[in-house]
């Protein structure tokens, strides 16, 4: 599988990951901006509004009919947070042309429809259509509100927000409901024009079509004005914590959710980064990690317990679902396991396991079109083009001393607990 980034004359990136192993293709077209309060809601709303209609395909139903004719290709808005950047645009998955009944060029149609949606929007009087903007504002607000439905991801999100309260990292990729309210169709259109002119722009394709076909298909992308030099800010990274904060919120749920926000201060470019990847695997990244073996298997306190890191931001979250009354004993055990790791109590078996698990997970990345795209997209934000296999080589060179050093960068910042209060007075049907 070959990765190549072609920089177009205007500075936009065309990223190709050529592979014949899939029966389908994965395509995406993204704008990348620094996360900022207010603009995040606009960007998230923008792609939803663009998906409602464009020149020639004026309604969502007409767009969907076109996608359906092309063998039900999926073409949807995608909004992501990567470090302190917001990435927004469209992605599309389609079957390869070789599977078409009547020789249709499904790939070319995918690029054409995607570009039409992105670059030929419906405009009336210097503004987007009010009907679409208002309807998508409502959908976006509902989406933001519905983030509470999945309590695990919700508690992890809340822990990050509390920990990084004064940093862009606390911002959501979808914005805040109250910011969505005030956006007018005209303001959104003006914002769109700014994005089209200035935002870092990266297209991706994972599949079997070749470079020339891809270049030829992206007509609008090539015609964009010259992009300004890359101005994406580096995220705020700190390893310092003055005091550990505790935040508890109550929700009418059966199971309490613990999420501990930690700082490591280590990001992908740092020399200690591969050691931190290993430290995380040892601590809570696998089903034989210290957390899993002790908090779950030995003490039976939970069903899930894990630690996850963000390689762009230098933070870690430790998460577990527990009974309310077990909070203290769980915290004590997690701390005991972290201390053991920091003291270098790592057996040869644990180390072998962590290395082996990482090898499998990293080697598997390129077996999925979507994962492959996401991997390289994150890389373009860093301006780094190393492959997953490069990280494997770096991991091989890590020593135990480095792992201990990396473990010792992990510092609690915020202990967040979503306390379950199910069975309250107004619980009746």
């Amino acid at each position, binding site marked *: 599988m070959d990765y190549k980034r072609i920089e177009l004359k205007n500075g936009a990136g065309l990223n190709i990951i050529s592979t014949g192993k899939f029966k389908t293709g994965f395509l995406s077209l993204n704008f990348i901006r620094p996360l900022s309060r207010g603009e995040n809601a606009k960007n998230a709303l923008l792609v939803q509004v663009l998906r409602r209609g464009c020149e020639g395909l004026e309604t969502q139903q007409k767009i969907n009919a076109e996608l359906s004719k092309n063998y039900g290709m999926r073409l949807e808005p995608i909004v992501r947070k990567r470090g302190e950047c917001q990435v927004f645009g469209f992605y599309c998955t389609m079957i390869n042309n070789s599977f078409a009944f009547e020789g249709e060029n499904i790939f070319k149609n995918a690029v054409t429809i995607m570009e039409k949606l992105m670059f030929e929007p419906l405009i009336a009087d210097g503004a987007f259509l009010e009907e679409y903007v208002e309807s998508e504002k409502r959908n976006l607000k509902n989406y933001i509100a519905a983030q509470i439905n999945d309590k695990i991801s919700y508690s992890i999100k809340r822990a990050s927000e509390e920990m990084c309260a004064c940093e862009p990292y606390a911002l959501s990729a979808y914005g805040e409901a109250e910011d969505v309210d005030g956006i007018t169709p005209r303001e959104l259109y003006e914002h769109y024009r700014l994005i089209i002119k200035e935002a870092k722009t990266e297209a991706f394709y994972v599949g079997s079509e070749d470079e020339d076909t891809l270049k030829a298909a992206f007509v609008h992308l090539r015609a964009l004005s010259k992009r300004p030099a890359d101005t994406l800010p580096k995220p705020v990274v700190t390893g310092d914590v003055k005091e550990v904060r505790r935040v508890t919120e109550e929700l009418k749920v059966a199971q309490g959710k613990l999420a501990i926000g930690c700082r490591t201060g280590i990001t992908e470019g740092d020399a200690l980064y591969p050691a931190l990847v290993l430290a995380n695997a040892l601590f809570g990244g696998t089903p034989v990690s210290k957390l899993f073996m002790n908090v779950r298997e030995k003490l039976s306190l939970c069903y899930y317990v894990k630690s996850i890191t963000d390689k762009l931001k230098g933070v870690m979250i430790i998460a577990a679902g527990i009974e309310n009354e077990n909070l203290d004993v769980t915290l004590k055990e997690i701390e005991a396991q972290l201390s053991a790791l920091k003291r270098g109590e790592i057996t040869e078996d644990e180390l072998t396991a962590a290395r082996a698990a990482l090898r499998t997970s990293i080697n*598997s990345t390129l077996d999925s079109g979507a994962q492959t795209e996401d991997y390289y997209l994150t890389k373009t934000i860093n301006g780094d083009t190393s492959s997953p296999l490069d990280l494997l080589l770096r991991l091989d060179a890590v020593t135990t001393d480095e792992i201990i050093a990396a473990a010792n960068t992990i510092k609690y910042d915020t202990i967040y607990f979503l306390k379950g209060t199910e069975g309250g007075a107004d619980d009746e049907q």
Partner: protein
Amino acid sequence: MSSETRITKKTYETLGEELIRIDHKSGLTALVVPKRGFSKMYAVFAANYGSVDREFKSDATDGFVVVPDGIAHFLEHKLFEGKDGNAFEKYAVTGASANAYTSFDKTAYLFSCTDRFKENLEILLDFVQSPYFTDENVKKEQGIIGQEIRMYDDHPDFRVLNNLLNLLYHEHPVRVDIAGTVESISHITPEILNTCYDTFYNLSNMVLCIAGDVDIDEVVSAMDEKIIKKPSSHIERKAINEPDTVAGTMTSQPLEVAIPKFMLGFKDICGEFTGRAAQKNDYLTEILMEMTAGEDSDLYGDLFGRGLINKNFGFEYYRERNFALSIFEGESEDPAAVRDAIFEKLALLREDFDEEAFNIAKKNVYSRMIFQFNSTDNIANSLISCYFNDIDMFEGIEMIKAISKEDAKARLLSHFKEELAALSVICPANDK
């Protein structure tokens, strides 16, 4: 049972896939789909045994026995533990990622890896064949699974489905959560686990499915070395007397959600849940659902325009060994209005069956089949149900192409009936 291992190979040209079937001398069948160019190798060892198998008799029992709800899932957790440590620890050494799952009708143990395949396969075959249940380790698991059940109790996606099944079915054990309840699992003992194990973990009731760039000789030799031949057990599952009506038509449960979640289900009473007829029904039903409420349909456009559904709207035909239902699901401030609109659209389709929409829907269902063959995980997992339920997934794309308008119309009339439908809603807890 033959005393020789037989290997047969079938090539599917259009799809560009190959299926290798190993009828092992032990009585176990293995199915392998070689995926060249993929790094990941994926293997699943599964038993045709799930949460609905609560009443049965076999050579291991004394007449019919009723076992505690949730025991198939409990057994799945427990098999990871052996006399000499747990399977996760063994996989820790090789780096494979191991897991397991239990559905209403099957239990599957799996690993994925990018190297040391044979060694990993041997670990899998070993631990699934080495039950080890003690009072102590059963008790420990009651704590862990108790937390898993509590997690599902809060999860709107699980609750909305379970409530729907309770509306559609009167007697069928699919009414009970796969994991059981904190109460039901408290009755589980090593003895009952052994009875279930001896009954269902029999080679004639199991299959091994593999997808990835593997060496067939290694698969056969791992089977030769590890498969323990046992006399095949005769399993008799108690017949389920499920009436051809629904038990209820509407339910609503308050939970911590922002917008109400709903599932509209149509109970399938056709009785064909395995074999070629069932497979054809899968495609017919999906085509019909696509025509009714696909993203390009008038209905979808109208509901979306009126703010009655959002992008989370979808549908699925859900079939397992002895039941099936069609589900339309989503989030809506007014689920009853969505249900009524779907009813109306179905009535309209019965009057006027749009041929062009039918052809486009067919293309959509066809494309979903092709997507299935993109991942080793999907392939191996689909193979299990196909094997147990006597279905050839590779024939799927040709079967879809051959489906006629008349077939679809007939299915529309027999399956999508209002009197076989029910609506399950999860509403926000603070809504009074």
